[in-house]
């Protein structure tokens, strides 16, 4: 009988943020339990208090360098309400420009994740030598994919820059609208081939990447279907007609069998339905649907969840791919974690089509940018960020200063899901192993990485963000530690 161990992975790599994994083994080397710990803390919700409400969209986006636009827009939607403007009251021009910005953000963020972070695992295998599992090796061995990835991300970033002034931490939204119009010259840049592809090319390339993942799935379905697959609830935003919507809509959740657990409720009512649990071993909270309880009420969010909850997609090519995606599970909710990559690429195709339509819409060149209303004391803004449902909630006093801020970030919704994924790998890959190989450790990361977690957003933290794996015995003594430097 051997000594019990606990395994810790710290830092978890190729994710946005700093996390740590611990695996607890018993005396026989069997996995007792596994945890994904988030070890950063920043406290953005507190220090925004006392600032005037109009600063929120600018300040809060500093949470993150990857998806600042999502925070900018969620905060802006909330602050719109404080100045008396609900989403339907925005001018058609402002509404379109915000959506265009949002789609560009989702597109570039998904491209970053798929090409830079996830593709090495798919192209070289999870057991490939560590030095091979990087986008640099993708650039060497799969030049075409690497070039596409760079330019697809660049398109999104350049569009963000055109609309918000900067690729990262720019400013577009202001209370009640947007502050800058989109010129014809700026617009035309994205319709033509130049040092970035045209939006038409972007659609073709996005389609080619969906075809790539379908082909990859055909060859590797045994692994993709099984790895870190488990049942859960799913949460996302849909239009009143049930279409996928990233910017505005109603909240819908379903359980593992597809039964509705949150029936297209208005986003303003989110607080009636959600509770956040805390655990002493992580700074990241655990949201769940209050009426279902902590055990049954947690949901996955993000691309996989969104495709599970929506009935349709409004653009033709992405709708066609949604039908293929849903047909694979006979219309039942898809709990296969690795299918998140497939779903993410379908969303990229959808964003490319949406950007195409908006760039051809004359209203995006309009100058009717702002609306005014009666000031209120509370605002709630919810959008579908690249990683999932993002909630911003603010209250202000009579002097317009923020008195309360609640942020439920996409990665936070996926906290339980990522813990389940880690547990799956611990039980199915690490269990009973005398020696833990580098490839096995990477599989823990692959499971987490599928959720594209943004740990800096989830804890509102800053700084270097690596990940670590440690092994403890049954008396909680550290036996072995695997650290990447």
């Amino acid at each position, binding site marked *: 009988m051997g000594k019990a161990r606990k395994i810790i992975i710290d830092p978890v790599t190729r994710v946005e943020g700093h996390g740590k994994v611990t695996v607890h083994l018993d005396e026989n080397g069997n996995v007792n339990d596994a945890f994904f710990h988030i070890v950063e803390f920043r406290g953005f919700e507190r220090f925004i208090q006392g600032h005037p409400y109009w600063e929120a969209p600018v300040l809060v986006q500093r949470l993150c360098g990857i998806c600042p636009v999502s925070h900018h827009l969620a905060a802006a939607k909330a602050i719109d309400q404080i100045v008396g403007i609900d989403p339907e009251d925005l001018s058609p021009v402002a509404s379109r420009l915000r959506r265009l910005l949002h789609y560009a953000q989702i597109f570039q963020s998904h491209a970053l994740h798929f090409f830079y972070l996830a593709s090495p695992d798919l192209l070289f295998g999870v057991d490939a030598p560590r030095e091979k599992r990087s986008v640099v090796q993708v*650039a060497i061995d799969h*030049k075409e994919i690497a070039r596409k990835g760079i330019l697809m991300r660049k398109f999104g970033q350049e569009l963000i820059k055109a609309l918000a002034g900067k690729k990262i931490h720019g400013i577009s939204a202001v209370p009640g609208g947007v502050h800058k119009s989109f010129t014809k010259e700026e617009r035309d840049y994205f319709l033509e081939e130049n040092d970035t592809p045209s939006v038409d090319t972007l659609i073709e390339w996005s389609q080619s990447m969906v075809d790539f993942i379908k082909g990859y799935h055909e060859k590797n379905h045994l692994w993709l279907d099984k790895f870190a697959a488990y049942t859960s609830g799913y949460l996302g935003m849909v239009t009143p007609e049930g279409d996928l919507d990233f910017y505005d809509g109603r909240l819908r959740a379903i359980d593992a069998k597809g039964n509705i657990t949150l029936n297209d409720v208005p986003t303003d009512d989110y607080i009636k339905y959600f509770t956040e649990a805390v655990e002493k071993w992580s700074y990241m909270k655990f949201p769940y649907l209050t009426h279902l309880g902590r055990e049954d009420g947690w949901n996955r969010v993000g691309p996989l969840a969104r495709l599970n909850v929506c009935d349709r997609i409004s653009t033709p090519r992405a709708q066609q791919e949604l039908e293929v995606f849903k047909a694979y599970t006979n219309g039942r909710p898809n709990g296969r974690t690795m299918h998140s990559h497939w779903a993410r690429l379908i969303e990229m195709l959808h964003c490319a089509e949406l950007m195409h339509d908006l760039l051809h819409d004359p209203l995006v060149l309009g100058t009717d940018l702002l609306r005014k209303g009666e000031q209120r004391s509370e605002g709630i803004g919810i959008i579908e960020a690249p990683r999932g449902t993002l909630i911003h909630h603010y209250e202000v006093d009579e002097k317009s200063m923020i008195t309360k801020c609640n942020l439920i970030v996409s990665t936070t919704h996926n906290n339980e899901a990522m813990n389940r994924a880690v547990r799956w790998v611990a039980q199915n890959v690490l269990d009973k192993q005398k020696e833990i190989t580098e490839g096995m450790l990477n599989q823990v990361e692959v499971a987490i990485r599928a959720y594209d977690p943004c740990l800096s957003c989830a804890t509102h933290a800053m700084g270097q963000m690596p990940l670590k794996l440690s092994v403890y015995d049954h008396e909680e003594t550290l036996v072995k530690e695997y650290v990447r430097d």
Partner: protein
Amino acid sequence: MAATGQTQNRMISDFADCKSLIIGIGNSGRSDDGLGWAFSESVEESELYRGDIVLRYQLQIEDADLISAYDQVLFVDAHSGRVDRGMRCELVDPHIEHSYSTHALLPGAIVGLCKELYDATPKAYILMIEGHEWDLKIGLSEIAQTNLSRALQYFQEEINQ
């Protein structure tokens, strides 16, 4: 630093005659880490140089695409070590860097990737300017200011050759 270690005289003198790019690297919210940006902004304001200038917190893979369109590139970054006269300019040695993290790449890796992906090898230099303070603070330390002035003077002399 991804450089050959070889300092050259008048190395960037033909900057004015070709398609050139200055990439200022750093973060002006971290005191002397803002040297790369401060240099780039001063060059832009002085109108000494008519090429392109971009600012970066960190170099990333897409910068390989960016530099592929240029003949010469000057990376400018703060340097935490000690160098004679507080600044040094070196040729960048292209190489392929394998790292678990691709959040931040060195200039040599960017030039190496550029060669790998686009079959282009712009002549690249790194101008390292010695800094001393790295805390959360806006503004350069006194010694960094002095080093910045030396770096600007060096740049001016080089392109006026």
